[in-house]
C-alpha cells in the first residue's frame, strides 16, 4: 500500500456531519424506487455499511470518520445501489424485455484515489461509468458527488458540477471531432464554462493543459488525423484536464493503443493523479492495467460487482472464481507460457445474457463449484470474508 502514504492525509477529527444527516443510518432498501418489473428477491449489499467504511477508514489505515461535507477526507463519489435497465423490444407485438446492464452496484471513491473496474466486454463497465456521470439516466439508486445527490438534480443545477467530472474514452479517433483543431478541441470546454476572460488567456490555458499531457504548443493547430493514436489520446486527456476536474473517468483508455504507447499513457495518468490529486474511476478489461494503476479494484460480471477490495489484497487472495479466471486469462511471459493448461472457465464460450439474467448468482452458469439449489436460486451478497479487511466477495462458496 505504498501509494496511500502519498495521499494527503488529514489528522483524524470527528465533528458531526454538517448536513445533520447521518447517511450511514439510511434505510438500506428503497422499495418505492423499485420498478414493478424488478425481479423479486434481489439481494443487496448494504450501502450504509459501505458509506461508513468510506468515512471511517482508508482500507484499514487513516481513520477519517464522518467529516464535514466538502472535507478532503470525505469520499468524492458515493454510488448507492445503482442499476441501469434498458428495455429491449423484440418484434412488433412482443412484450418488452429488460436488459439489466448494471444491477445493484454500490461503491465509494475517495479523493486522490483510483478505483479500477475490471470485467469482460458486456459486463456493464461502460454503462456504469456513464450512469455515474449521468450521461445515461440511472434506473434506480443514487450517486452522490461531493455529498450532493446528482441523480435527481435538474440539468441547470447539474451543469456546474459537470465541469468537475470528466471522462476519457476508449477510441480517441472517435471521441475527437475530426474537423476541429487541437486548440478548438481543448478550448471547447474552457469556452463553455467561461474559464478564460480573453483569447490570450484561453490560449495560455490550452497550452498549459497540453503541457500537462506532454504535448507542445506546436500541436495546437493540428487536426486529429495528423496525430498518432497515442497523441490523440493525450489530446483527449488534455481536453478533460483543461476543466480542472476532480473526478476523471477513464473508460478503457488504453485498449486501442500499442503496448509501448499504453505504457506511456499509463505513466501519464499515474503521474497526473499524483500531481493533481485526481480521483480516477479506471475501467479496463486488462487486469494488468487495473492492478498497476488502482488503489482498489472491483470485479464486474454481468452487471454486478462480484469482488471488491484493496488491489494488494485482491492480488494476494482471489475469493471469487471469476476473479481467479480473470487472473488466469492474463497472458504470461514465463518459460511455460506455451504449455500453460486451460482451466475450466477458459472453455466456456458463452456468457449468460443480461436480458433476463439468470436467477441466483450471475456466475453460477460458468462456475466450476456452483451448488445446485443454492447458487442458481439465491443471489449472494457482496460481503467481507474477513471482517474489517474491506475485501468483499459475492459468492456462496468463496475459496478461502
Amino acid at each position, binding site marked *: 500500500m505504498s*501509494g496511500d502514504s502519498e495521499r494527503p492525509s488529514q489528522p483524524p477529527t470527528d465533528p458531526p456531519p454538517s448536513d445533520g444527516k447521518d447517511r450511514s443510518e439510511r434505510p438500506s432498501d428503497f422499495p418505492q424506487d423499485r420498478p414493478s418489473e424488478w425481479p423479486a428477491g434481489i439481494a443487496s449489499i448494504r450501502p450504509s455499511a459501505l458509506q461508513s467504511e468510506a468515512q471511517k477508514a482508508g482500507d484499514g489505515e487513516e481513520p477519517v470518520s464522518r467529516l464535514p461535507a466538502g472535507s478532503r477526507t470525505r469520499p468524492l463519489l458515493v454510488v448507492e445501489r445503482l442499476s441501469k435497465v434498458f428495455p429491449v423490444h423484440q418484434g412488433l407485438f412482443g412484450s418488452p424485455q429488460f436488459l439489466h446492464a448494471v444491477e445493484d452496484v454500490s461503491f465509494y471513491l475517495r479523493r486522490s484515489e483510483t478505483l479500477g473496474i475490471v470485467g469482460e466486454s458486456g459486463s456493464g463497465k461502460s454503462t456504469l461509468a456513464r450512469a455515474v456521470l449521468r450521461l445515461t439516466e440511472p434506473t434506480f439508486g443514487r450517486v452522490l458527488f461531493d455529498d450532493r445527490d446528482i441523480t435527481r438534480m435538474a440539468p441547470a443545477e447539474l451543469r456546474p458540477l459537470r465541469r468537475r467530472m470528466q471522462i476519457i474514452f476508449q477510441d480517441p479517433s472517435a471521441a475527437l471531432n475530426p474537423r476541429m483543431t487541437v486548440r478548438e478541441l481543448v478550448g471547447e470546454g474552457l469556452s463553455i464554462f467561461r474559464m478564460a476572460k480573453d483569447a490570450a488567456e484561453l490560449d495560455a490555458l490550452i497550452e498549459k493543459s497540453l503541457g500537462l499531457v506532454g504535448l507542445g504548443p506546436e500541436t495546437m493547430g493540428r487536426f486529429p488525423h495528423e496525430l498518432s493514436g497515442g497523441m490523440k489520446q493525450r489530446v483527449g486527456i488534455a481536453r478533460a484536464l483543461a476543466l480542472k476536474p476532480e473526478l476523471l473517468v477513464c473508460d478503457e483508455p488504453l485498449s486501442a493503443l500499442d503496448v509501448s504507447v499504453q*505504457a506511456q499513457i499509463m505513466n501519464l495518468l499515474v*503521474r497526473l493523479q499524483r500531481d493533481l490529486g485526481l480521483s480516477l474511476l479506471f475501467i479496463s478489461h486488462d487486469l494488468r492495467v487495473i492492478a498497476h*494503476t488502482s488503489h482498489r479494484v472491483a470485479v464486474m460480471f454481468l452487471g454486478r460487482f462480484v469482488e471488491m477490495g484493496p488491489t494488494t489484497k485482491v492480488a494476494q487472495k482471489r475469493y471469487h472464481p471469476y476473479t481467479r479466471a480473470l487472473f488466469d486469462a492474463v497472458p504470461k511471459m514465463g518459460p511455460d507460457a*506455451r504449455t500453460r493448461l486451460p482451466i475450466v472457465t*477458459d472453455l466456456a464460450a458463452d456468457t449468460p445474457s443480461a436480458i433476463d439474467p439468470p436467477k441466483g448468482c450471475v456466475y453460477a452458469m460458468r462456475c466450476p463449484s456452483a451448488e445446485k439449489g443454492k447458487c442458481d436460486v439465491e443471489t449472494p451478497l457482496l460481503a467481507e470474508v474477513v471482517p474489517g479487511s474491506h475485501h468483499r466477495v459475492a459468492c456462496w462458496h468463496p475459496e478461502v
Partner: protein
Amino acid sequence: MGNDSELLTVRDLTVKLATDGGSLEVLSRVGFDVPRGKVVGLMGESGSGKSITALSIVRLLPEIGSAIRSGTVMFDGVDLTKLSERELEKIRGKQIGFVFQDPLASLNPVYRVGSQIVEAIRLHEHIPAKAARVRAIELLRRVGVPQPEERVDAYPHELSGGLRQRVMIAVAIACSPALVIADEPTSALDMVTQRQIVLLFRDLVRTQGMSLLIIAHDPALLAELSDELVVMYAGQVVEHGPAKRVLEKPAHPYTMALLRSVLPADFGAVVQPRSLLPVVEGHPPDLRRVPLGCRFQPRCDSAFDDCATRKPHLMKLPLDQGEARCLLLGDKESSP
C-alpha cells in the same frame, strides 16, 4: 533455410505505397520463414509494417499505387509474387486462410454466418449446399461455438465479439489451409475471450497440423503461442529467432525496450503499483525521413556515434538463435 521444412519463405520483400507526398517505402527487404506446423509471431508497434507484410504475402494490398518492388514469397514451392490474380485466388482461402482484427468488419452483416462459411467452402470445393452446411456446423463446433446447429443461422450482430471471431476462424480453416495468417486476432476482445482464442489457435495448430503466422503488438500474447518470433521496426525486421530466446534474451535494444514495457502478470511482485513504467519514449520514425543509420537509433538508450551514420545488417547470433540488426553485435561489414 528455405528447405522443405519451411512452408513459407519471405525474402527481401520491399513494398512501396503511393501517398500524397510521393512513393513511400513501407517494407524494406523483409525476410522470415514460417516452418510447417509451427507458429510464427510478428511483433512490433503500429506502423512498423506488420499488417502490410501479411497483406503482401497474398498480394491483398490496394491495386493502385502499391507495388511489391522486389523480393520473393515462396509458399509450398511456388513464388506467390509471380502468380497471376486468377492463380492467386485459388490459393487465398484454400491454402492460406485469413483472420482479421475486427470480425464485425470482415463478416457480411446481411448474411447468416452459416452461409458465409458455406460460401468459403463452395468457392473452392464443388460440393452440394446441403453437405456444405453440415460441414459449416461441424466447423462451428470445431471452433467452440456452443449450439452450432442454431448459431449457424445467426447473423453476425447476434453474436458476441468472441463468437464472431470464432466464426471468422471457422471461415479461415474451412478448406483446411496449410497456413493461417491472423492479424491482431484478439486485440478487439477482452482478456478472457483472448485467452480462449489463444487456446483455440494452439489446439488447431496441434490437431490440424497447420502453420500460423500471428501478428500482435502484445508480446505477452505472442509468448503464449509462438515457436518463432519476428520483431519489426519501421518497415524492417530488426530481430528474429526462437520465441524462447527472443523473450528471455532479446538481442536488439528495441526488443528489449518493447519487452520492458509489458506489465508483469504477477501483479505487483516486480513492479510497484502506480510506479512509472520503463517506456520507449518518442515515436517510430516518419517513413519519409528514415534516419540515415540505424532506424531505431533516435530512441535507443545504447546508441553510440556510429549508429547515426552506419546502417546495421542482420547479424547471425551464435548457436542458431536467429539474427538481430544492431551495430552493438559487432557488425564489421556494414557500410558507412
